[in-house]
Protein backbone atom coordinates (compact mmCIF):
# COMPACT_ATOMS: atom_id res chain seq x y z
CA UNK A 1 0.00 0.00 0.00
CA UNK A 2 2.68 2.44 1.05
CA UNK A 3 4.74 2.00 -2.10
CA UNK A 4 1.71 2.50 -4.32
CA UNK A 5 0.91 5.70 -2.51
CA UNK A 6 4.41 6.97 -3.04
CA UNK A 7 4.14 6.02 -6.71
CA UNK A 8 0.92 7.99 -7.01
CA UNK A 9 2.50 11.06 -5.47
CA UNK A 10 5.52 10.79 -7.76
CA UNK A 11 3.23 10.52 -10.79
CA UNK A 12 1.30 13.58 -9.68
CA UNK A 13 4.48 15.56 -9.05
CA UNK A 14 5.92 14.70 -12.45
CA UNK A 15 2.66 15.80 -14.02
CA UNK A 16 2.67 19.10 -12.18
CA UNK A 17 6.28 19.71 -13.07
CA UNK A 18 5.78 18.76 -16.71
CA UNK A 19 2.91 21.17 -17.13
CA UNK A 20 3.90 23.95 -14.79
CA UNK A 21 7.46 24.28 -16.13
CA UNK A 22 6.46 26.13 -19.28
CA UNK A 23 4.28 28.42 -17.21
CA UNK A 24 7.06 29.18 -14.79
CA UNK A 25 9.44 29.68 -17.69
CA UNK A 26 7.05 32.23 -19.14
CA UNK A 27 6.69 34.07 -15.86
CA UNK A 28 10.44 34.21 -15.41
CA UNK A 29 10.95 35.39 -19.00
CA UNK A 30 8.34 38.13 -18.64
CA UNK A 31 10.22 39.58 -15.69
CA UNK A 32 13.52 39.95 -17.56
CA UNK A 33 12.67 42.77 -19.97
CA UNK A 34 15.31 44.96 -18.38
CA UNK A 35 18.66 43.32 -18.92
CA UNK A 36 20.32 41.82 -15.81
CA UNK A 37 17.48 42.46 -13.34
CA UNK A 38 13.96 41.24 -12.61
CA UNK A 39 11.27 43.88 -13.09
CA UNK A 40 7.65 44.35 -14.00
CA UNK A 41 8.64 46.57 -16.92
CA UNK A 42 6.95 44.25 -19.45
CA UNK A 43 3.67 44.47 -17.55
CA UNK A 44 3.33 48.17 -18.32
CA UNK A 45 1.57 47.12 -21.52
CA UNK A 46 -1.46 46.36 -19.35
CA UNK A 47 -2.07 50.09 -19.11
CA UNK A 48 -2.67 50.49 -22.83
CA UNK A 49 -6.21 51.00 -24.09
CA UNK A 50 -5.67 48.46 -26.85
CA UNK A 51 -5.08 45.68 -24.32
CA UNK A 52 -8.01 46.72 -22.15
CA UNK A 53 -10.44 46.98 -25.05
CA UNK A 54 -9.45 43.66 -26.60
CA UNK A 55 -9.57 41.90 -23.28
CA UNK A 56 -12.98 43.34 -22.40
CA UNK A 57 -14.28 42.37 -25.83
CA UNK A 58 -13.02 38.80 -25.35
CA UNK A 59 -14.57 38.60 -21.88
CA UNK A 60 -17.98 39.66 -23.19
CA UNK A 61 -17.83 37.25 -26.11
CA UNK A 62 -16.75 34.49 -23.72
CA UNK A 63 -19.68 35.10 -21.38
CA UNK A 64 -22.15 35.17 -24.27
CA UNK A 65 -20.63 31.97 -25.62
CA UNK A 66 -21.11 30.32 -22.25
CA UNK A 67 -24.74 31.39 -21.96
CA UNK A 68 -25.66 30.31 -25.49
CA UNK A 69 -23.91 26.97 -25.24
CA UNK A 70 -25.42 26.13 -21.84
CA UNK A 71 -28.87 26.87 -23.24
CA UNK A 72 -28.19 24.61 -26.21
CA UNK A 73 -26.36 21.80 -24.44
CA UNK A 74 -28.31 21.23 -21.22
CA UNK A 75 -31.66 20.46 -22.89
CA UNK A 76 -29.95 18.40 -25.59
CA UNK A 77 -28.06 16.23 -23.12
CA UNK A 78 -31.18 15.90 -21.01
CA UNK A 79 -33.34 14.75 -23.89
CA UNK A 80 -30.74 12.40 -25.24
CA UNK A 81 -30.22 10.75 -21.86
CA UNK A 82 -33.93 10.56 -21.16
CA UNK A 83 -35.54 9.70 -24.45
CA UNK A 84 -32.90 8.72 -26.97
CA UNK A 85 -30.08 6.99 -25.10
CA UNK A 86 -29.28 5.07 -28.27
CA UNK A 87 -28.46 8.33 -30.02
CA UNK A 88 -25.86 9.23 -27.43
CA UNK A 89 -22.83 7.98 -29.39
CA UNK A 90 -24.00 9.89 -32.47
CA UNK A 91 -24.60 13.09 -30.57
CA UNK A 92 -21.28 12.68 -28.85
CA UNK A 93 -19.61 12.29 -32.20
CA UNK A 94 -21.34 15.37 -33.58
CA UNK A 95 -20.25 17.47 -30.65
CA UNK A 96 -16.69 16.37 -31.28
CA UNK A 97 -16.78 17.60 -34.86
CA UNK A 98 -15.47 21.08 -34.01
CA UNK A 99 -12.32 19.44 -32.69
CA UNK A 100 -11.91 17.43 -35.85
CA UNK A 101 -12.79 20.13 -38.33
CA UNK A 102 -9.87 22.56 -38.32
CA UNK A 103 -10.97 26.02 -37.22
CA UNK A 104 -9.97 27.36 -40.59
CA UNK A 105 -12.45 25.06 -42.32
CA UNK A 106 -15.16 26.10 -39.90
CA UNK A 107 -14.58 29.74 -40.75
CA UNK A 108 -14.40 29.10 -44.48
CA UNK A 109 -17.72 27.34 -44.17
CA UNK A 110 -19.33 30.10 -42.16
CA UNK A 111 -18.00 32.75 -44.48
CA UNK A 112 -19.45 30.96 -47.46
CA UNK A 113 -22.79 30.51 -45.72
CA UNK A 114 -23.19 33.95 -44.32
CA UNK A 115 -21.28 36.22 -46.71
CA UNK A 116 -22.79 39.53 -47.70
CA UNK A 117 -24.53 38.08 -50.75
CA UNK A 118 -26.11 35.10 -48.96
CA UNK A 119 -29.66 34.78 -47.61
CA UNK A 120 -28.44 35.63 -44.12
CA UNK A 121 -25.65 38.19 -44.50
CA UNK A 122 -23.71 38.22 -41.27
CA UNK A 123 -20.46 39.72 -42.45
CA UNK A 124 -21.93 43.02 -43.57
CA UNK A 125 -21.62 44.93 -40.30
CA UNK A 126 -19.35 44.64 -37.24
CA UNK A 127 -22.34 43.63 -35.08
CA UNK A 128 -23.35 40.89 -37.49
CA UNK A 129 -19.77 39.65 -37.69
CA UNK A 130 -19.68 39.55 -33.90
CA UNK A 131 -22.74 37.31 -34.01
CA UNK A 132 -20.93 35.10 -36.49
CA UNK A 133 -17.90 35.01 -34.19
CA UNK A 134 -20.19 34.03 -31.32
CA UNK A 135 -21.65 31.21 -33.44
CA UNK A 136 -18.18 29.94 -34.24
CA UNK A 137 -17.11 30.07 -30.60
CA UNK A 138 -20.23 28.22 -29.50
CA UNK A 139 -19.28 25.50 -31.97
CA UNK A 140 -15.71 25.50 -30.66
CA UNK A 141 -16.91 25.28 -27.06
CA UNK A 142 -19.39 22.53 -27.80
CA UNK A 143 -17.13 19.51 -27.24
CA UNK A 144 -16.06 20.76 -23.82
CA UNK A 145 -19.46 21.92 -22.71
CA UNK A 146 -21.12 18.76 -23.95
CA UNK A 147 -18.67 16.41 -22.28
CA UNK A 148 -18.75 18.28 -18.98
CA UNK A 149 -22.52 18.42 -18.81
CA UNK A 150 -22.98 14.90 -20.12
CA UNK A 151 -20.70 13.41 -17.50
CA UNK A 152 -22.29 15.60 -14.83
CA UNK A 153 -25.74 14.46 -15.80
CA UNK A 154 -24.68 10.83 -15.73
CA UNK A 155 -24.07 11.13 -12.01
CA UNK A 156 -27.69 12.21 -11.56
CA UNK A 157 -30.53 9.74 -11.95
CA UNK A 158 -32.18 11.90 -14.61
CA UNK A 159 -34.93 9.48 -15.47
CA UNK A 160 -36.14 8.83 -11.94
CA UNK A 161 -35.90 12.49 -10.92
CA UNK A 162 -37.90 13.43 -14.00
CA UNK A 163 -40.54 10.83 -13.28
CA UNK A 164 -40.72 11.87 -9.63
CA UNK A 165 -41.22 15.49 -10.68
CA UNK A 166 -43.79 14.54 -13.32
CA UNK A 167 -45.81 12.51 -10.84
CA UNK A 168 -45.86 15.59 -8.59
CA UNK A 169 -47.32 17.63 -11.44
CA UNK A 170 -44.22 19.29 -12.89
CA UNK A 171 -44.04 20.36 -16.54
CA UNK A 172 -40.99 20.30 -18.75
CA UNK A 173 -39.78 23.81 -17.86
CA UNK A 174 -40.03 23.17 -14.13
CA UNK A 175 -38.16 19.91 -14.48
CA UNK A 176 -35.35 21.45 -16.53
CA UNK A 177 -34.85 24.57 -14.46
CA UNK A 178 -35.67 23.47 -10.92
CA UNK A 179 -34.73 19.80 -10.97
CA UNK A 180 -32.08 19.14 -13.60
CA UNK A 181 -30.05 22.35 -13.92
CA UNK A 182 -29.38 22.85 -10.17
CA UNK A 183 -28.08 19.31 -9.92
CA UNK A 184 -25.56 19.65 -12.74
CA UNK A 185 -24.41 23.11 -11.65
CA UNK A 186 -20.84 22.07 -10.96
CA UNK A 187 -20.61 20.36 -14.34
CA UNK A 188 -21.95 23.49 -16.04
CA UNK A 189 -19.34 25.56 -14.22
CA UNK A 190 -16.55 23.25 -15.26
CA UNK A 191 -17.70 23.47 -18.89
CA UNK A 192 -18.03 27.24 -18.56
CA UNK A 193 -14.49 27.53 -17.30
CA UNK A 194 -13.08 25.60 -20.23
CA UNK A 195 -15.13 27.68 -22.64
CA UNK A 196 -13.86 30.84 -21.05
CA UNK A 197 -10.26 29.70 -21.34
CA UNK A 198 -10.66 28.69 -24.96
CA UNK A 199 -12.36 31.86 -26.07
CA UNK A 200 -9.80 34.05 -24.30
CA UNK A 201 -6.97 32.19 -26.05
CA UNK A 202 -8.51 31.80 -29.52
CA UNK A 203 -7.13 33.84 -32.41
CA UNK A 204 -7.44 31.94 -35.70
CA UNK A 205 -11.14 32.50 -36.24
CA UNK A 206 -11.08 35.98 -34.80
CA UNK A 207 -8.28 37.08 -37.09
CA UNK A 208 -9.99 35.59 -40.14
CA UNK A 209 -13.14 37.51 -39.22
CA UNK A 210 -11.04 40.51 -38.29
CA UNK A 211 -12.48 40.96 -34.82
CA UNK A 212 -10.38 42.80 -32.17
CA UNK A 213 -10.11 39.98 -29.60
CA UNK A 214 -7.39 39.44 -27.04
CA UNK A 215 -5.92 36.45 -28.88
CA UNK A 216 -5.20 38.45 -32.03
CA UNK A 217 -3.79 41.27 -29.96
CA UNK A 218 -1.49 38.86 -28.12
CA UNK A 219 -0.35 37.37 -31.40
CA UNK A 220 0.47 40.79 -32.80
CA UNK A 221 2.41 41.78 -29.71
CA UNK A 222 4.19 38.42 -29.69
CA UNK A 223 5.59 39.00 -33.16
CA UNK A 224 7.72 41.99 -32.09
CA UNK A 225 7.73 42.21 -28.30
CA UNK A 226 8.37 38.78 -26.73
CA UNK A 227 8.66 40.09 -23.16
CA UNK A 228 5.35 41.94 -23.36
CA UNK A 229 3.72 38.92 -24.96
CA UNK A 230 4.89 36.74 -22.09
CA UNK A 231 3.55 39.27 -19.61
CA UNK A 232 0.18 39.28 -21.38
CA UNK A 233 0.09 35.47 -21.36
CA UNK A 234 0.77 35.44 -17.66
CA UNK A 235 -1.97 37.97 -17.03
CA UNK A 236 -4.47 36.15 -19.25
CA UNK A 237 -3.67 32.96 -17.45
CA UNK A 238 -4.03 34.60 -14.04
CA UNK A 239 -7.38 36.15 -14.93
CA UNK A 240 -8.71 32.90 -16.28
CA UNK A 241 -7.57 31.14 -13.18
CA UNK A 242 -9.13 33.78 -10.97
CA UNK A 243 -12.47 33.49 -12.77
CA UNK A 244 -12.34 29.81 -12.20
CA UNK A 245 -11.58 30.32 -8.54
CA UNK A 246 -14.56 32.64 -8.18
CA UNK A 247 -16.79 30.12 -9.92
CA UNK A 248 -15.60 27.41 -7.58
CA UNK A 249 -16.30 29.56 -4.54
CA UNK A 250 -19.76 30.67 -5.58
CA UNK A 251 -20.83 27.56 -7.40
CA UNK A 252 -19.36 24.92 -5.17
CA UNK A 253 -21.47 21.86 -4.87
CA UNK A 254 -21.90 21.82 -1.13
CA UNK A 255 -23.04 18.23 -1.10
CA UNK A 256 -20.15 15.92 -0.32
CA UNK A 257 -20.02 12.72 -2.28
CA UNK A 258 -21.63 9.83 -0.45
CA UNK A 259 -18.93 7.92 1.37
CA UNK A 260 -18.30 4.33 0.40
Amino acid at each position, binding site marked *: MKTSSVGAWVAVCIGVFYLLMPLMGTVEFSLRMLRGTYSFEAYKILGTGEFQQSFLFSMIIALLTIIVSVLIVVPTVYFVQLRLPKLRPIVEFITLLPLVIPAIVLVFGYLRLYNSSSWLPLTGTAEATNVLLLFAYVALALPYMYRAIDSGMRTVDVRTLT*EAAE*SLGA*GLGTILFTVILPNVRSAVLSGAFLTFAIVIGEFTIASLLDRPVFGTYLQNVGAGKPYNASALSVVAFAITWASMGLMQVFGRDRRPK*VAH
Partner: protein
Amino acid sequence: MAYLELKSIVKSFGSTKVVQQFDLAVDQGEFVSFLGPSGCGKTTVLRMIAGFEQPSAGSITVEGQEISHLPPAKRNIGMVFQAYALFPNLTVGQNVGFGLKLAGVPKAERDARVAEMLEIIKLPQLADRYPYQLSGGQQQRVALARALAVRPKILLLDEPLSALDAKIRVSLREEIRALQRQLGITTIFVTHDQEEALSISDRIVVMHEGKAAQIGAPFEIYNSPKTKFVASFVGTLNILEATVMDWGQMRLSIDGRDVTTSHGFTAKAGEKVSVALRPEAATLGWTNDGRNHMAGTVEEVAFLGSVVRVRVRFEHQTISLDTFNDPANPPPLRGATVAVAFKPEDLIILEGGTTEANHEPGTAVDAPVAVTELA
Protein backbone atom coordinates in the same frame (compact mmCIF):
# COMPACT_ATOMS: atom_id res chain seq x y z
CA MET B 1 -67.56 -0.13 -9.58
CA ALA B 2 -63.95 -0.46 -8.56
CA TYR B 3 -61.94 2.64 -7.74
CA LEU B 4 -59.05 1.74 -10.04
CA GLU B 5 -59.75 -0.55 -12.94
CA LEU B 6 -57.34 -2.03 -15.47
CA LYS B 7 -59.04 -3.73 -18.39
CA SER B 8 -57.33 -6.01 -20.94
CA ILE B 9 -54.03 -4.18 -20.64
CA VAL B 10 -51.44 -5.20 -23.22
CA LYS B 11 -47.95 -3.74 -23.48
CA SER B 12 -45.49 -4.66 -26.20
CA PHE B 13 -41.97 -3.39 -26.67
CA GLY B 14 -41.25 -4.15 -30.29
CA SER B 15 -42.28 -7.75 -30.77
CA THR B 16 -42.07 -8.80 -27.11
CA LYS B 17 -45.30 -8.72 -25.16
CA VAL B 18 -44.34 -7.66 -21.67
CA VAL B 19 -47.89 -7.53 -20.36
CA GLN B 20 -50.65 -9.71 -21.77
CA GLN B 21 -54.37 -9.19 -21.18
CA PHE B 22 -53.99 -7.91 -17.66
CA ASP B 23 -57.22 -7.25 -15.72
CA LEU B 24 -57.49 -5.90 -12.23
CA ALA B 25 -60.06 -4.04 -10.14
CA VAL B 26 -58.86 -2.31 -6.98
CA ASP B 27 -61.26 -0.94 -4.37
CA GLN B 28 -60.82 2.41 -2.69
CA GLY B 29 -58.44 2.14 0.25
CA GLU B 30 -57.20 -1.29 -0.75
CA PHE B 31 -53.54 -2.31 -0.56
CA VAL B 32 -52.66 -4.51 -3.53
CA SER B 33 -49.21 -5.98 -4.19
CA PHE B 34 -47.77 -7.10 -7.51
CA LEU B 35 -45.45 -10.00 -6.76
CA GLY B 36 -43.22 -11.77 -9.23
CA PRO B 37 -39.66 -12.38 -10.41
CA SER B 38 -37.86 -9.70 -12.39
CA GLY B 39 -39.12 -9.43 -15.94
CA CYS B 40 -42.64 -10.60 -15.08
CA GLY B 41 -44.13 -7.25 -16.09
CA LYS B 42 -45.13 -6.03 -12.63
CA THR B 43 -43.18 -2.77 -12.88
CA THR B 44 -44.46 -2.15 -16.40
CA VAL B 45 -48.07 -2.33 -15.20
CA LEU B 46 -47.25 0.08 -12.38
CA ARG B 47 -45.60 2.49 -14.81
CA MET B 48 -48.64 2.38 -17.05
CA ILE B 49 -50.84 3.37 -14.10
CA ALA B 50 -48.42 6.22 -13.33
CA GLY B 51 -48.39 7.29 -16.97
CA PHE B 52 -44.69 6.72 -17.68
CA GLU B 53 -45.61 4.07 -20.22
CA GLN B 54 -48.56 3.91 -22.59
CA PRO B 55 -50.51 0.65 -22.77
CA SER B 56 -50.48 -0.83 -26.28
CA ALA B 57 -54.13 -1.78 -25.72
CA GLY B 58 -56.66 -1.72 -22.92
CA SER B 59 -58.02 0.91 -20.56
CA ILE B 60 -57.12 2.30 -17.16
CA THR B 61 -59.86 4.07 -15.24
CA VAL B 62 -59.84 5.83 -11.88
CA GLU B 63 -63.27 6.54 -10.39
CA GLY B 64 -64.69 5.57 -13.76
CA GLN B 65 -62.63 8.12 -15.71
CA GLU B 66 -60.26 6.92 -18.39
CA ILE B 67 -56.75 8.20 -17.57
CA SER B 68 -54.53 6.30 -19.97
CA HIS B 69 -54.10 9.26 -22.29
CA LEU B 70 -53.28 11.80 -19.57
CA PRO B 71 -49.63 12.74 -19.01
CA PRO B 72 -48.24 11.68 -15.60
CA ALA B 73 -48.37 15.26 -14.32
CA LYS B 74 -52.16 15.39 -14.76
CA ARG B 75 -53.03 12.07 -13.13
CA ASN B 76 -52.62 13.00 -9.48
CA ILE B 77 -51.05 9.64 -8.71
CA GLY B 78 -48.23 9.56 -6.16
CA MET B 79 -45.18 7.42 -6.77
CA VAL B 80 -42.32 6.21 -4.58
CA PHE B 81 -39.24 4.79 -6.29
CA GLN B 82 -36.71 2.18 -5.28
CA ALA B 83 -33.93 4.78 -5.64
CA TYR B 84 -35.78 7.30 -3.40
CA ALA B 85 -35.48 9.98 -6.13
CA LEU B 86 -35.43 12.90 -3.72
CA PHE B 87 -34.32 16.12 -5.37
CA PRO B 88 -30.72 16.45 -4.16
CA ASN B 89 -30.69 20.25 -4.36
CA LEU B 90 -33.75 20.71 -2.16
CA THR B 91 -34.12 20.28 1.58
CA VAL B 92 -36.42 17.68 3.05
CA GLY B 93 -39.08 20.34 3.59
CA GLN B 94 -38.74 21.66 0.04
CA ASN B 95 -38.93 18.13 -1.32
CA VAL B 96 -42.13 17.40 0.55
CA GLY B 97 -43.58 20.78 -0.47
CA PHE B 98 -42.55 20.45 -4.15
CA GLY B 99 -45.88 19.15 -5.42
CA LEU B 100 -47.84 21.63 -3.31
CA LYS B 101 -45.83 24.54 -4.67
CA LEU B 102 -46.50 23.40 -8.23
CA ALA B 103 -50.18 23.11 -7.41
CA GLY B 104 -50.10 26.76 -6.33
CA VAL B 105 -50.86 26.14 -2.67
CA PRO B 106 -50.13 29.35 -0.69
CA LYS B 107 -46.95 29.33 1.39
CA ALA B 108 -48.59 29.29 4.82
CA GLU B 109 -50.85 26.40 3.96
CA ARG B 110 -47.96 24.61 2.29
CA ASP B 111 -45.72 24.95 5.34
CA ALA B 112 -48.46 23.59 7.55
CA ARG B 113 -49.00 20.63 5.27
CA VAL B 114 -45.26 19.90 5.06
CA ALA B 115 -44.99 20.02 8.86
CA GLU B 116 -47.96 17.69 9.12
CA MET B 117 -46.45 15.22 6.66
CA LEU B 118 -43.08 15.24 8.44
CA GLU B 119 -44.94 14.62 11.68
CA ILE B 120 -46.68 11.62 10.13
CA ILE B 121 -43.40 10.09 8.98
CA LYS B 122 -41.86 10.89 12.37
CA LEU B 123 -39.08 13.11 11.03
CA PRO B 124 -40.30 16.60 12.02
CA GLN B 125 -36.83 17.69 13.07
CA LEU B 126 -35.25 17.03 9.66
CA ALA B 127 -37.06 19.63 7.54
CA ASP B 128 -33.90 21.64 6.84
CA ARG B 129 -31.59 18.72 6.09
CA TYR B 130 -30.55 17.76 2.59
CA PRO B 131 -31.24 14.26 1.30
CA TYR B 132 -27.54 13.27 1.39
CA GLN B 133 -27.57 13.87 5.15
CA LEU B 134 -30.24 11.22 5.67
CA SER B 135 -30.02 7.45 5.95
CA GLY B 136 -31.67 5.33 3.27
CA GLY B 137 -34.66 4.57 5.47
CA GLN B 138 -35.17 8.24 6.27
CA GLN B 139 -34.87 9.20 2.60
CA GLN B 140 -37.50 6.70 1.65
CA ARG B 141 -39.84 8.00 4.35
CA VAL B 142 -39.36 11.52 3.00
CA ALA B 143 -40.12 10.23 -0.50
CA LEU B 144 -43.32 8.76 0.88
CA ALA B 145 -44.25 12.06 2.52
CA ARG B 146 -43.51 13.91 -0.72
CA ALA B 147 -45.78 11.58 -2.70
CA LEU B 148 -48.57 11.83 -0.13
CA ALA B 149 -48.37 15.60 0.46
CA VAL B 150 -50.42 16.39 -2.63
CA ARG B 151 -53.16 13.97 -1.50
CA PRO B 152 -52.98 11.76 -4.58
CA LYS B 153 -55.83 9.50 -5.58
CA ILE B 154 -53.57 6.47 -5.72
CA LEU B 155 -50.16 5.70 -4.25
CA LEU B 156 -47.74 3.58 -6.27
CA LEU B 157 -44.74 1.98 -4.58
CA ASP B 158 -42.07 0.56 -6.90
CA GLU B 159 -39.96 -1.81 -4.77
CA PRO B 160 -39.50 0.96 -2.20
CA LEU B 161 -37.73 -1.29 0.29
CA SER B 162 -35.25 -3.13 -1.95
CA ALA B 163 -32.37 -0.75 -1.38
CA LEU B 164 -32.63 -0.88 2.40
CA ASP B 165 -31.04 -3.04 5.08
CA ALA B 166 -32.96 -6.05 6.36
CA LYS B 167 -34.01 -4.54 9.68
CA ILE B 168 -35.10 -1.21 8.21
CA ARG B 169 -36.96 -3.06 5.49
CA VAL B 170 -39.18 -4.78 8.02
CA SER B 171 -39.85 -1.72 10.16
CA LEU B 172 -40.50 0.57 7.19
CA ARG B 173 -42.94 -1.86 5.61
CA GLU B 174 -44.92 -1.86 8.84
CA GLU B 175 -44.85 1.94 8.88
CA ILE B 176 -46.02 2.10 5.28
CA ARG B 177 -48.89 -0.22 6.01
CA ALA B 178 -49.93 1.71 9.13
CA LEU B 179 -49.74 5.01 7.24
CA GLN B 180 -51.75 3.60 4.34
CA ARG B 181 -54.46 2.43 6.76
CA GLN B 182 -54.46 5.77 8.56
CA LEU B 183 -54.87 7.78 5.35
CA GLY B 184 -57.07 5.21 3.66
CA ILE B 185 -55.21 5.65 0.38
CA THR B 186 -55.55 3.14 -2.43
CA THR B 187 -52.09 1.65 -2.88
CA ILE B 188 -50.25 -0.55 -5.37
CA PHE B 189 -47.00 -2.06 -4.18
CA VAL B 190 -44.52 -3.82 -6.46
CA THR B 191 -42.07 -6.33 -5.02
CA HIS B 192 -40.17 -9.51 -5.79
CA ASP B 193 -40.07 -10.47 -2.11
CA GLN B 194 -42.85 -12.87 -1.18
CA GLU B 195 -42.60 -12.19 2.54
CA GLU B 196 -43.00 -8.48 1.88
CA ALA B 197 -46.06 -9.05 -0.30
CA LEU B 198 -47.64 -11.56 2.08
CA SER B 199 -47.16 -9.43 5.15
CA ILE B 200 -48.35 -6.07 3.84
CA SER B 201 -51.17 -6.67 1.39
CA ASP B 202 -54.93 -6.89 1.36
CA ARG B 203 -54.60 -8.72 -1.92
CA ILE B 204 -51.67 -10.01 -3.96
CA VAL B 205 -51.40 -10.28 -7.73
CA VAL B 206 -48.80 -12.96 -8.46
CA MET B 207 -47.41 -12.17 -11.89
CA HIS B 208 -45.69 -14.54 -14.26
CA GLU B 209 -44.63 -13.81 -17.82
CA GLY B 210 -46.82 -10.73 -18.16
CA LYS B 211 -49.96 -12.35 -16.83
CA ALA B 212 -51.66 -12.46 -13.46
CA ALA B 213 -51.05 -16.05 -12.37
CA GLN B 214 -53.29 -15.60 -9.33
CA ILE B 215 -55.05 -12.78 -7.53
CA GLY B 216 -56.11 -13.25 -3.93
CA ALA B 217 -55.58 -12.53 -0.23
CA PRO B 218 -52.20 -13.58 1.20
CA PHE B 219 -53.72 -16.51 3.10
CA GLU B 220 -55.39 -17.73 -0.07
CA ILE B 221 -52.30 -17.29 -2.27
CA TYR B 222 -50.11 -19.08 0.23
CA ASN B 223 -52.40 -21.94 1.10
CA SER B 224 -54.25 -22.49 -2.17
CA PRO B 225 -51.85 -21.68 -4.98
CA LYS B 226 -53.56 -22.15 -8.32
CA THR B 227 -50.50 -22.91 -10.45
CA LYS B 228 -47.20 -24.65 -9.90
CA PHE B 229 -45.48 -21.33 -10.44
CA VAL B 230 -47.40 -19.68 -7.61
CA ALA B 231 -46.81 -22.68 -5.36
CA SER B 232 -43.08 -22.57 -5.88
CA PHE B 233 -42.65 -18.78 -5.93
CA VAL B 234 -44.71 -18.07 -2.81
CA GLY B 235 -43.35 -19.74 0.29
CA THR B 236 -41.19 -22.80 0.63
CA LEU B 237 -42.57 -26.09 -0.55
CA ASN B 238 -41.18 -29.59 -0.16
CA ILE B 239 -41.78 -31.57 -3.33
CA LEU B 240 -41.33 -35.31 -2.93
CA GLU B 241 -41.73 -38.29 -5.19
CA ALA B 242 -44.02 -40.97 -3.88
CA THR B 243 -45.14 -44.39 -5.10
CA VAL B 244 -48.83 -45.21 -4.89
CA MET B 245 -49.39 -48.21 -2.62
CA ASP B 246 -53.15 -48.45 -2.38
CA TRP B 247 -55.36 -46.17 -4.40
CA GLY B 248 -58.55 -46.73 -2.38
CA GLN B 249 -57.01 -46.04 1.01
CA MET B 250 -54.90 -43.26 -0.40
CA ARG B 251 -51.72 -44.86 0.85
CA LEU B 252 -48.38 -43.80 -0.60
CA SER B 253 -44.75 -44.71 -0.03
CA ILE B 254 -42.02 -42.11 0.17
CA ASP B 255 -38.52 -43.58 0.26
CA GLY B 256 -40.00 -46.79 1.66
CA ARG B 257 -42.00 -45.08 4.40
CA ASP B 258 -45.77 -45.53 4.31
CA VAL B 259 -47.89 -42.40 4.51
CA THR B 260 -51.54 -41.56 3.88
CA THR B 261 -53.18 -38.52 2.41
CA SER B 262 -56.73 -37.29 2.71
CA HIS B 263 -56.68 -35.89 -0.82
CA GLY B 264 -57.98 -38.07 -3.64
CA PHE B 265 -55.92 -38.75 -6.76
CA THR B 266 -56.22 -40.75 -9.96
CA ALA B 267 -52.85 -42.54 -10.17
CA LYS B 268 -52.95 -46.35 -9.81
CA ALA B 269 -50.96 -48.54 -7.44
CA GLY B 270 -47.29 -48.74 -8.40
CA GLU B 271 -47.33 -45.40 -10.21
CA LYS B 272 -45.23 -42.44 -9.16
CA VAL B 273 -46.81 -39.18 -8.08
CA SER B 274 -45.41 -35.88 -6.85
CA VAL B 275 -46.53 -34.75 -3.46
CA ALA B 276 -45.99 -31.45 -1.69
CA LEU B 277 -45.72 -30.49 1.96
CA ARG B 278 -45.31 -27.04 3.51
CA PRO B 279 -42.43 -26.94 6.00
CA GLU B 280 -44.65 -25.57 8.77
CA ALA B 281 -47.05 -28.52 8.39
CA ALA B 282 -44.45 -31.00 9.63
CA THR B 283 -43.28 -31.40 13.22
CA LEU B 284 -40.52 -33.40 14.88
CA GLY B 285 -41.26 -36.33 17.19
CA TRP B 286 -43.86 -39.07 17.56
CA THR B 287 -47.49 -38.17 18.21
CA ASN B 288 -50.66 -40.16 18.85
CA ASP B 289 -53.16 -38.23 16.77
CA GLY B 290 -53.23 -40.18 13.53
CA ARG B 291 -50.41 -38.25 11.84
CA ASN B 292 -48.03 -39.73 9.33
CA HIS B 293 -44.56 -40.42 10.68
CA MET B 294 -41.33 -40.81 8.75
CA ALA B 295 -38.01 -41.62 10.40
CA GLY B 296 -34.95 -39.84 9.01
CA THR B 297 -31.61 -38.23 9.77
CA VAL B 298 -31.08 -34.53 10.42
CA GLU B 299 -28.99 -33.19 7.56
CA GLU B 300 -29.03 -29.45 8.18
CA VAL B 301 -30.25 -27.12 10.89
CA ALA B 302 -30.71 -23.46 10.03
CA PHE B 303 -31.56 -21.07 12.80
CA LEU B 304 -33.68 -18.29 11.23
CA GLY B 305 -34.50 -16.43 14.44
CA SER B 306 -37.88 -17.27 15.88
CA VAL B 307 -38.04 -20.20 13.48
CA VAL B 308 -35.57 -23.07 13.17
CA ARG B 309 -35.57 -24.83 9.82
CA VAL B 310 -34.51 -28.48 9.95
CA ARG B 311 -33.75 -30.57 6.89
CA VAL B 312 -34.30 -34.30 7.36
CA ARG B 313 -33.03 -36.91 4.93
CA PHE B 314 -34.83 -40.22 4.34
CA GLU B 315 -33.24 -42.47 1.72
CA HIS B 316 -32.90 -40.33 -1.38
CA GLN B 317 -35.16 -37.46 -0.54
CA THR B 318 -35.16 -34.74 2.05
CA ILE B 319 -37.79 -32.62 3.70
CA SER B 320 -37.47 -29.19 5.31
CA LEU B 321 -39.59 -28.42 8.31
CA ASP B 322 -40.02 -25.35 10.49
CA THR B 323 -40.18 -25.38 14.28
CA PHE B 324 -40.25 -22.47 16.69
CA ASN B 325 -37.13 -21.70 18.62
CA ASP B 326 -37.46 -22.74 22.25
CA PRO B 327 -34.70 -21.76 24.68
CA ALA B 328 -35.42 -24.86 26.75
CA ASN B 329 -35.16 -27.24 23.77
CA PRO B 330 -32.18 -26.68 21.52
CA PRO B 331 -32.74 -27.79 17.91
CA PRO B 332 -31.63 -31.35 17.05
CA LEU B 333 -28.01 -31.84 16.05
CA ARG B 334 -26.94 -32.72 12.55
CA GLY B 335 -26.80 -36.51 12.20
CA ALA B 336 -29.47 -37.19 14.83
CA THR B 337 -32.28 -39.65 14.01
CA VAL B 338 -35.69 -38.05 14.23
CA ALA B 339 -39.31 -38.69 13.30
CA VAL B 340 -41.11 -36.27 11.03
CA ALA B 341 -44.87 -36.07 11.68
CA PHE B 342 -47.55 -34.44 9.55
CA LYS B 343 -51.32 -34.68 9.12
CA PRO B 344 -52.73 -36.65 6.18
CA GLU B 345 -54.59 -33.55 4.95
CA ASP B 346 -51.35 -31.56 4.67
CA LEU B 347 -49.87 -33.94 2.13
CA ILE B 348 -50.89 -32.37 -1.18
CA ILE B 349 -50.92 -34.43 -4.36
CA LEU B 350 -49.57 -32.53 -7.35
CA GLU B 351 -51.61 -34.09 -10.13
CA GLY B 352 -49.87 -34.54 -13.42
CA GLY B 353 -47.46 -36.95 -11.85
CA THR B 354 -43.83 -36.06 -12.41
CA THR B 355 -42.09 -33.16 -10.81
CA GLU B 356 -40.83 -30.31 -12.93
CA ALA B 357 -37.56 -31.00 -14.64
CA ASN B 358 -35.71 -28.25 -12.85
CA HIS B 359 -36.69 -29.33 -9.36
CA GLU B 360 -34.69 -32.22 -8.07
CA PRO B 361 -37.31 -34.34 -6.33
CA GLY B 362 -36.90 -34.49 -2.61
CA THR B 363 -35.55 -31.00 -2.15
CA ALA B 364 -37.25 -28.02 -0.69
CA VAL B 365 -37.98 -25.61 -3.50
CA ASP B 366 -36.80 -22.49 -1.84
CA ALA B 367 -35.99 -20.61 -4.96
CA PRO B 368 -37.38 -21.50 -8.34
CA VAL B 369 -33.90 -20.98 -9.71
CA ALA B 370 -34.78 -21.79 -13.26
CA VAL B 371 -37.48 -19.15 -13.25
CA THR B 372 -35.92 -16.24 -11.47
CA GLU B 373 -32.41 -16.71 -12.74
CA LEU B 374 -33.39 -16.70 -16.37
CA ALA B 375 -36.02 -14.04 -16.08
